[in-house]
């Protein structure tokens, strides 16, 4: 994040124009091998990348081609684990649930975060306080949030008491295959929307006020201003929020583990939880590695698609 151009104070702008700035007194060795020096500086990051990211990924890929059984030993099965996964009804269900979940939750969360960001950047009484309250749930660890919501969603819990107050019938929430996934989406949005909202608020605050003033003079309505000024100019933070939110929603685990354990009837069995069960409950590490590889591929495809769509609009 830091650049070498910031140290010179007043003339930093001028220097930025002629980057890369030559070092004050380059050594002979440095002049001959600038790449080596650069590499030395990059080494800690590269080593970390290699050891913490690339090596585990390679191990996962390699392991997913083998099968180790308790009584039979280890053998090479090539794509056997992948083929078996795609034939497994539990995996097929997990895949479907994850896709439905991704398609529903991301637009919902991003839209809500955008609308809230617009709302809380208006000059209204106490909007900063409301804003803080919306962001507050991020400070609660996901596991604790899940436990709190497990009490809210109980048949005799807060949610049903609230419905009762409105004269609505009690709902089964997490105990119904039709409502469980939606209930988890609500809980995740309660945690996540405030966080994504912050990025959008920053983006909206960057839009020069003069644009709005000019539009007002031309008689543009607030609605028109929202769609023709705010929305296009906030597109870059919006793209980041969409991609980051998608990735984080593909990796959802704690609420499922704590609230539903993938049930009822597999209706909340997201891929991440299915991987966990396969690896640590069923003890089938190789197939779980194959599933991890599949999840990474799915994530890459979805993110690539999003980048492509957002770019073509430019």
């Amino acid at each position, binding site marked *: 994040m830091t650049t070498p151009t910031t140290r010179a104070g007043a003339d930093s702008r001028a220097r930025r124009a002629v980057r890369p700035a030559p070092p004050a007194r380059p050594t002979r060795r440095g002049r001959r091998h600038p790449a080596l020096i650069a590499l030395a500086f990059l080494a800690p990051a590269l080593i970390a990348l290699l050891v913490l990211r690339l090596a585990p990924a390679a191990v996962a890929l390699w392991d997913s081609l083998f*099968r180790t*059984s*308790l*009584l*039979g030993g280890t053998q090479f099965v090539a794509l056997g684990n992948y083929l078996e996964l795609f034939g*497994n*009804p*539990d995996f097929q269900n997990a895949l479907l649930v994850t896709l439905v979940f991704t398609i529903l939750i991301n637009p919902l969360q991003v839209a809500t975060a955008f609308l809230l960001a617009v709302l809380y950047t208006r000059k209204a009484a106490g909007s900063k306080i409301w804003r803080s309250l919306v962001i507050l749930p991020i400070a609660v660890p996901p596991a604790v949030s899940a436990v709190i919501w*497990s*009490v809210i*969603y*109980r*048949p*005799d*819990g807060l949610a049903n008491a609230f419905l009762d107050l409105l004269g609505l019938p009690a709902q*089964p*929430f*997490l*105990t*119904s*295959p039709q409502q469980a996934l939606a209930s988890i989406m609500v809980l995740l949005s309660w945690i996540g929307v405030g966080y994504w909202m912050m990025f959008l608020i920053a983006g909206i605050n960057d839009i020069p006020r003069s644009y709005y003033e000019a539009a007002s003079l031309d008689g543009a309505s607030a609605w028109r201003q929202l769609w023709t000024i705010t929305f296009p100019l906030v597109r870059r933070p919006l793209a980041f929020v969409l991609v980051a939110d998608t990735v984080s929603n593909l990796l959802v685990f704690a609420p499922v583990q704590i609230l539903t*354990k*993938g*049930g*009822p*009837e597999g209706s909340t069995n997201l891929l991440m939880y299915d991987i966990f*069960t396969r690896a*640590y*409950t*069923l*003890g*089938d590490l190789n*197939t779980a590695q194959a599933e991890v590889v599949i999840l990474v591929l799915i994530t890459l495809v979805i993110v690539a698609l999003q980048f492509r769509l957002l770019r073509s609009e430019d």
Partner: protein
Amino acid sequence: MKRSRALLLAGVAASAVLLAGCSAPADSGSAGDGSGTVRFLGPEDPATFAPVIAAFEAEHPDITIDYTQVPFDQYSSTLQQRLGAKDDTIDVYAVDQPNLSQLAAQGFLEDLSDLSDEAKAATSSAQFEINQYDGKMWALSVWNSTQMLFFNRDALAAAGVEAPTADPAARWTWEQTADAGRAAQAAGTQYGLLLEQVEAYYQLQPLAESLGGGSGITGDDMLTVDVTNDGWQQAMAWYGDTFESGLSPRGVGGFQTAPVFIDGNVAFFVGGPWDVGRFASDATFDWGVAPMPYFEGGEVATPTGSWSWGVNTASKNKDAARAFIEFAALDPAGALATTEATTIIPSNTEAAAKYLPGLEELGGEHAAGVADLITYEIEETAVPRPVSVGYVQFESAMNTAFADIRNGSDPAARLEQATTQIQDAWKKLR
């Protein structure tokens, strides 16, 4: 130049510290002569085992026990990792009894068959059998458990229902319990019946056993699923109906069940000995203890089992390790010391006889008869969980099925689905 050399030195020093951290201390005591340090791994708080370790070290001054706790959630996977790597820094470890056959099949447990006679004499037959796999004995039972029917006497009185007693001869049936629970609900109590581990095989196995459905695992190699027979279907239909009819609440998870009873919101609660102390201190109404029910015309069956301790095959100090587990399991004084700092029943029969009156005292007048009841259940009605290398996969699939049936899935179809899931998982074992 000076600077870079200093940096280099710092780097070397840092790596040295890291490497030193990785290599385990080499001192594991003198090998094989029953002295030195015994490293003991378990999921409990260190305070729990402090009394038994102190008592053992007092008797064996040349042996030191070094206990390490690994939280229960990570215990099984940590064991798999470390034992799989032939880690000799574990000498003794606690074995969750249903996992014993898997650990033994993997070669992670030392054969203790030469202690069979002493072990048989020291504990109940169910607790002796649970440590057998492939005709050999692989661990010694240290703790045991059972389940009882707790009831809210005030709620029953309000409904005009005469409460059950602690006498096993006057054991209630599930049908009788459900009727009384519904009567209590009609008289104002929120729920009629609740099981503490409401979606767990440990507590639900007896329902099927009582109706002749068996454990769910059969075959010579104990790798044949049998959960679609009449007994299992009938038991699960009954279980599903307790929730469908509102007798029992849906959506109340494992750790939230006991508070429902403590708050006076349920008439009957099936729980363990550990609840006696908890209810004695927290429940403000009149409660009592009765034997766990059975189905009318069926067998009486109650849950059992807890933790055994075994010796790691990779241990370099097996004699001292064996001395320690023999002390905790076979010596009544040692066995009693394992329960000194916690509420659990020692597997050792003699120690249990000394321990149970104290438990009864803890519960006060509410728990009258609990000591005799627990002794009776452990000796006469306990049915252990099945011994199979595939138990872990079986239990996981069954628990998910129980949760679904609780939430309204058709029992017959769901048991069919569980069978397929278990068969798929077991294919990978062979």
